[in-house]
């Protein structure tokens, strides 16, 4: 294993931001390679935790170096500055590094960070980006692939997660790492992690096992993996977006990952000052709860749940 410096940014009063990658060199030059990008933003833990666990796994759990076939680069954190002070984005100007790609070496600070990172990520067969959902929601682990014309759905199935969201491309997606990485020839996948603020062992293991499954099935590591799910491809039209009619205190009564029936109560909203139930949230269809609002206070018309339709 080699530690390589990806980038360094100085600060007026903080110690320098030094982003390092852990490069594990495989023994088979014909094997596919992969780069894994961890936390680009703060206020979540799983992208960081998963990437750091992976460094430990590759260092200590492959008992024979022959088992490492292709090159693996893991960059657990890009944005230490945000993580250390519980900010979500770049702390000075609140810009999102994942909206700065392909980056620009002569530009603003986060454009420069994106450029240096992007340069270090070139030439890999596969690319995994550990992300969390935008907005105030959390979800079961899934793969997000843009309908960009370059996406590799078959390979995305090798993670063995239940869902692959094959997502319509929005204008703002064109400056994301996934889209640009694909444009430059790497099969890139966004692994959307639950937006937990703490490490919950059950879900974090699920995220982690998916990556190991991918590495094994792609032949990047020689490692026996147990099969996961046969992933379902989900288009935007397969998802029921359930909004609350009322704002107030939000109490989900069904968990993410559970199957629900049409008209089943899956959550309720309580009057924030008087305590009574002012709205019951019913599932409009049979399906699987993939996503839920994560805060205790919910806004009117906010998306409370996303249910993937079944039946």
């Amino acid at each position, binding site marked *: 294993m080699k530690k390589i410096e990806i980038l360094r940014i100085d600060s007026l009063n903080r110690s320098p931001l030094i982003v390092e990658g852990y490069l594990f060199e495989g023994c088979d030059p014909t094997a596919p390679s992969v780069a894994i990008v961890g936390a680009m933003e703060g206020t979540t833990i799983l992208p960081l935790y998963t990437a750091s666990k992976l460094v430990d796994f590759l260092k200590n759990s492959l008992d024979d170096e022959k088992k490492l076939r292709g090159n693996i680069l893991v960059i657990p954190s890009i944005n230490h500055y945000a993580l250390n002070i519980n900010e979500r984005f770049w702390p000075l100007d609140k810009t999102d590094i994942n909206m700065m790609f392909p980056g620009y070496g002569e530009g603003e600070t986060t454009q420069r960070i994106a450029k240096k990172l992007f340069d270090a990520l070139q030439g890999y067969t596969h690319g995994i980006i550990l992300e969390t959902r935008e907005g105030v929601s959390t979800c079961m682990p899934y793969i997000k692939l843009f309908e960009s014309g370059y996406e590799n759905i078959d390979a995305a199935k090798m993670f063995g997660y239940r869902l692959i969201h094959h997502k319509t491309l929005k204008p703002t997606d064109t400056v994301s790492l996934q889209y640009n990485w694909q444009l430059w020839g790497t099969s890139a996948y966004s692994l959307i992690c639950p937006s937990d603020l703490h490490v919950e062992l059950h879900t974090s293991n699920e995220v982690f096992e998916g990556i190991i499954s991918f590495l094994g099935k792609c032949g990047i590591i020689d490692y026996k993996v147990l099969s996961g799910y046969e992933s379902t491809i989900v288009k935007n039209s397969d998802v029921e977006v359930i909004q609350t009619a009322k704002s107030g205190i939000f109490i989900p009564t069904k968990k993410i990952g559970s199957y629900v029936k049409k008209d089943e109560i899956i959550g309720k909203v309580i009057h924030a000052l008087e305590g009574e139930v002012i709205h019951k949230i019913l599932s409009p269809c049979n399906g699987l709860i993939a996503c839920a609002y994560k805060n205790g206070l919910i806004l009117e*018309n906010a*998306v409370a749940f996303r249910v993937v339709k079944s039946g």
Partner: protein
Amino acid sequence: MQTTEIFSSQLPVGEILSIKRGRYEPKQKQANAKRISIVSGTHGDELEGQYVIYLLSKWLKENPDAINGIIDLYPAVNALGIDTITRGFPIYEVDLNRAFPGNKRDFLPGQLVHALAMDIKGSDIAIDIHSSNIFLKEIPQIRINKEFSPSTLPLAKKLNCDFIWIHDAVTVLEATFSHTMNQMGTKTLVVEMGVGMTLTQVYGQQLLSGILNLMKSEGIITTDQEFEQREPFSSEVGDVFYINSPSAGLFVQSIKHCAIIKKGDVIGTIVDPLSGEVRDTLEAPSGGILFTLREFPVVYEGSLIARIFGENDEKN
């Protein structure tokens, strides 16, 4: 003036989020009356537009007989953000000017921008007033997407601004207010001026004259008053030079904003308070007009310090 709520949402704890429009109309309804919409506060840390809309509303109130068309005022698009010094939409941390066109089924920021776009739809002209951010100070300028410039550039020249910046189409900017409205057939101009969290009164007066001048030439107001119309520099006839900080430190200005400068003039220094040393001295790479200058002193490598517009003959 008639006030209408164009979007409202009950917040969780005893408060209603309300986005308002003020409308001035001619005393007698007129067939074919033109409609102009003036928008500000999409970014909660930008306040200059609020002042301009105040001045405009005051003028219209004092000159009711001048009104020939419909003038819609939307001073506070990100009302929650403005009252809480938050640039994006609070809770979601979303830039509202990257959330257009939105839709009714979208999350709250998306519903809000959708309601705004639907309300403004049908206007002949829209002006979206921004005031940079808390980091940079801008001279009054118009930003125009090349794609729409044939229809918007003639209007921009009437707005009494100092600079017109015509930029290429960028996909990510399709999620902005101006792109959405231009595509729906409303000629939309983006004004950038001043700096975040501040009111620059002279700029407010300057843009007020420009808006009145534009409305007069479009027949939306009729008055004997004359309004100033400066001849703006246009990026068509020159180049924009960027100066980004080469190092981290404290930026100390050596020059006044908006100054005409020569190549090699010192714009400022990056200093280190602890050691008392100057880390870098920043010189102008070209002569021209300094139309952007950093106000917020803390910088990292890459932080934008200044932008200079140099006309072609200046460069040689």
